[in-house]
């Protein structure tokens, strides 16, 4: 096996999420966890580059929040360093559909602090920082607008980014996509409202966001982690146990070695489709 994911127990209170959680999903996840008594897929975290011993949750905010709500002291996570070549961060865009295109744009214009302006080629890319736009919206007819705001501070800008998503997420259907052009989507979405293109983030941006206690809209960051640990199925009672973390990590190491010795671990180098996610 060419590489192996780094798995470890960490304190739940040392984990900082960077995106809103989905309350419905968290509740059903909590029920599943209690029913199955196993920790299936470890959240992916990256250590802060300071001496705070904190970790940014890159993926698995609902799982981490569920553990927190259940009062668990420790989480079993996959740790990856910020500069690991196996880590990359992309952004999901939102395809919005079943809301009239006019109402879709009007709702965004109606958010106090936000405005829409036609996008010019010379316009800077949207971003979380400074005076630039927050996102790009493309109408169902392909017209592009920059979603602008006057605010320059991170907290207000992230609040407005959430307000932008709030304009459609409860009134329309949305899918995540990496596509940047509505003309590629219209044949799949006959009632297309438009496309929202979010800024490209860096992990450092997300650490700043989490550090300030701000949260991005749910599910717009997209991490590729190579290799990714899946279907760990570790006993949940081990996460809950009132034992020192060092002892839990020693037991985890032994458990992994036994799984490897019994051929219970398999590496897939190629892309996969899981049919029981």
């Amino acid at each position, binding site marked *: 096996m060419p590489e192996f994911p780094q798995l470890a127990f960490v304190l739940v209170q040392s984990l900082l999420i960077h995106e809103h959680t989905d309350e419905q999903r968290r509740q059903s996840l909590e029920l599943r966890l209690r029913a199955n008594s196993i920790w299936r897929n470890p959240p992916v975290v990256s250590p802060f580059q300071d001496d705070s011993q904190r970790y940014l949750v890159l993926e698995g905010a609902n799982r981490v929040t569920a553990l927190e709500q259940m009062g668990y002291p420790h989480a079993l996570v996959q740790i990856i360093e910020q500069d690991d070549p196996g880590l990359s961060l992309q952004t999901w865009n939102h395809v919005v559909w079943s809301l009239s295109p006019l109402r879709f744009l009007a709702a965004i214009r109606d958010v106090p602090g936000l405005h829409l302006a036609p996008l010019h080629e010379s316009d800077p890319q949207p971003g979380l920082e400074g005076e630039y736009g927050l996102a790009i919206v493309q109408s169902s007819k392909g017209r592009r607008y920059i979603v602008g705001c006057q605010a320059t501070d991170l907290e207000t800008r992230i609040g407005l980014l959430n307000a932008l998503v709030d304009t459609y997420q409860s009134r329309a259907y949305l899918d995540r996509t990496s596509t940047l052009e509505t003309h590629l989507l219209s044949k799949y979405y006959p009632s297309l409202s438009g496309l929202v293109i979010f800024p490209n983030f860096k992990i450092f941006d997300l650490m700043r966001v989490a550090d300030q206690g701000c949260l991005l809209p749910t599910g717009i960051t997209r991490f590729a982690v190579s290799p990714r640990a899946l279907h760990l199925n570790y006993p949940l009672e081990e996460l809950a146990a009132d034992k020192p973390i060092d002892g839990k990590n020693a037991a985890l190491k032994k458990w992994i070695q036994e799984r490897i010795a019994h051929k219970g671990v398999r590496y897939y180098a*190629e892309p996969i489709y899981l*049919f029981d996610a």
Partner: protein
Amino acid sequence: VNPSLPQLEILELEALLVHEWYDQQRTQPLSQRLLKSGVLRNPPIVTPAQDDSGCYIVLDGANRVATLRLLQYPHILAQVIQPADPGLRLRTWNHVILDTLPGDLVTSLHEVPGLSLSSSEETYITLPSQREVGLGIIQTMDGKVYALSAPEGGLQRRVEMLNAVVNCYQHIARLDRTSLNEIAPLRPLFPELSALMIFPKFDILELIRLASNGWLLPPGISRTMVSPRALHVNLPLSELASPRSLADKNAALQAMIHQRSQQGQLQFYAEPTVFFDE
């Protein structure tokens, strides 16, 4: 937007041709695991034979195919990939030879009729070519490297000789497999390491020809990578065993895939993954 879903089909079991011997030691526990779980978890990978026979060549999953045959199932779920599909790549697993002395191994190999061993102190040597056929390279723990070859005799002869080589050492040693082509990194992983057998590569047309003619490779040396690979389909065995027609079963399979897709149960991972529940 994710790439297309893998092509999954239920096929007649008797239409499948394997290209490698199955591992008898693995079929017994596999059949017990299959029956206990009640599902076929991962579909074997097959490619259509390049003739009008309607047969498929099993690229990955010979033991699953053998197990379902032993259990007398009429049908099997498979992932079908075309030979020219850019998502299909063939690699080779090499044998890590354990629990025997390098000297004993070499002595045994010398006794294989028709096999030539040329030794070298160089770490990297190439397989013999031209009038001889290269069968592999053996690197031993005592720093020797041997090129294994036999007189030219075509693909069939090459496969026969490979089987003779593997049969020779599998009775005096314990085997593991690796994708590595060098013995040095294996030393810390296997304290009982004796040698590394590096196998030659076969292309897809050679594998199809082997299977179509019933010339079988030693078990588990060909390594098929398909992109994307379908995993954890968990098709109930009762569905494969039922007396319904193949067309009905395939219609039900497509409906199941559609339903799982609608329920968000299909997840694509572009990056390499490590599963801990194999």
